């Protein structure tokens, strides 16, 4: 288990040489990362507020009201059940989706519950204001990050997988599954799984922005290819929704990995920049 505890091998003076701190994250990367935490939390919560104005998703150019791909409604004789439908499947999600308690404690028909939407109560106009303001903030932050990543070489040096790494991908996956993380010299670089995850997040973010723009009637007039790309405005809305929850799934795995691979060390590196690689442990060899 020593590999799970970075720095455990360090004793007194040895720590200086055996477990040195090196600068893992540049100030731009750290700032962009934490701003994104705030921006994406607001975007998710205000996005769910917007979704709640019409809690149904469709596939194609327009809404097929009788036949949604997904819907969250209160049903039953007195509307006492929250029901989520995905295609032909139907789930009772009372208290969570379709019907949940608002800030007044009353069960009310709403897609997502008020504790996860911004604002909490149904208020599409305000939700849109929050969403579009922080969409701009997200785009500016992302643009600064991407320009920096290209200009500084971060994208090529730290994030682009090398041919050798592709060959070792199976081994890397197995080691992640066993929660055995690289240490020593090897930990100075992202491994292939990390590289693919972080590159994937960037691609997802770009897709997210494009799918958002495809929902704009103004942008559709300027760039009709946005509609072709996503298969219509309602498909774009559905894809935007799926990508949002993909981010939440990424976040769950990301946070788990941060905790499992040395919470303190990881947090320090994303706050101060400095990361301890730890000594290479014997069971990591070969």
């Amino acid at each position, binding site marked *: 288990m020593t590999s799970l505890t970075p720095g455990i091998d360090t004793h007194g003076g040895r720590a200086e040489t055996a477990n040195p701190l090196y600068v893992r994250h540049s100030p731009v990367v750290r700032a962009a990362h934490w701003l994104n935490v705030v921006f994406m939390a607001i975007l998710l919560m205000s996005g769910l507020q917007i979704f709640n104005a019409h809690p*149904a998703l469709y596939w194609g150019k*327009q809404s097929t009201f009788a036949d949604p791909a997904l819907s969250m409604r209160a049903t039953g004789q007195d509307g006492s059940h929250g029901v989520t439908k995905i295609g032909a499947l139907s789930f009772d999600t009372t208290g969570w989706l379709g019907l949940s308690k608002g800030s007044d404690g009353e069960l009310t028909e709403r897609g997502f519950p008020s504790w996860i939407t911004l*604002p909490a109560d149904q208020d599409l*106009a305000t939700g849109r204001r929050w969403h*579009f303001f922080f969409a*701009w903030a997200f785009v500016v932050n992302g643009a600064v990050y991407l320009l920096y990543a290209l200009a500084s070489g971060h994208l090529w040096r730290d994030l682009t997988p090398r041919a050798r790494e592709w060959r070792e991908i199976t081994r890397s996956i197995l080691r992640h599954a066993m929660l055995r993380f690289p240490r020593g010299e090897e930990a100075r670089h992202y491994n292939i799984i990390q590289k693919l995850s972080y590159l994937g997040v960037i691609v997802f973010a770009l897709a997210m922005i494009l799918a958002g723009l495809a929902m704009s009637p103004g942008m559709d*007039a300027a760039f009709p290819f946005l509609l072709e790309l996503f298969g219509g405005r309602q498909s774009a809305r559905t894809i935007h929704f799926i990508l949002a929850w993909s981010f939440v799934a990424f976040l769950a795995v990301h946070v788990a990995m941060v905790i499992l691979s040395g919470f303190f060390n990881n947090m320090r590196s994303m706050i101060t920049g400095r990361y301890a690689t730890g000594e290479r442990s014997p069971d990591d060899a070969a």
Partner: protein
Amino acid sequence: MPPDTNRRRFLGLAAAMGVLPVAGCDQDAVNAEVTATLDSAETLTRAAQRLFISRTSLAPEFTEADIAPSFRPNGSVSPREHGYKAFAKTKFADWKLRVEGLVEKPLDLSLADLRAMPARTQITRHDCVEGWSAIGKWTGAPLAPILDLAKPANTAKYVVFHCFDAPDYDSGDDDGSELSSDLKPDLYYESIDLIDARHPQTILAYELNGAPLPVSNGAPLRVRVERQLGYKMAKYIKSVELIADYSKIAGGNGGFWEDRGYEWYAGI
């Protein structure tokens, strides 16, 4: 939403970001600041979209096969405002569209006059701010030539559509009776700038899917502003007014829904 929730959320956020010292803030001032800050995104969005969208770039048009089997009406579906029902009874034979305001030559156009003008038919997608879309075929008189007939003054910057409907009273499950004439409900209105007013797809539509515009979709006349959201496309139009600024009309934000917090520029 209760202002308290908004305030708490913002202060929490500001504290988390280290932007504001939480203690000692005038909370109403903070609230106003938040609203003003969030609203600045609308200006940015409008400027950015106007940069990318040329004046004449068209909203996508679709084929007959794409037309929705029934076009979903929204907002008012049966106006109860004094006067409207009488017009509806005679199929709007006595109704006339007034074009007025900052124009050299005010106009009164009957439905027959409008039908006699050059027409445009377009199959377009209607996007509701709620998130849904419906495709319909609209036929109507383009607004630009009507403006040319009325000769707007140089000071005219916006076109306002004044409407019969009062959405607060016209929901589908009312008893349908006429509103008391003592009642002064907030009537629907909308405004667009001259760029959108003169856009080739901006038409005063009197037909939906080849039939006279049904009452639920805005009879006798509704405007189509295809590069913006549905709430810009006023139904039940009573008159068209050219103005220099909309701050004196109703709530002062340029439209019924704008007075209730929605963006004036609804291209997104």
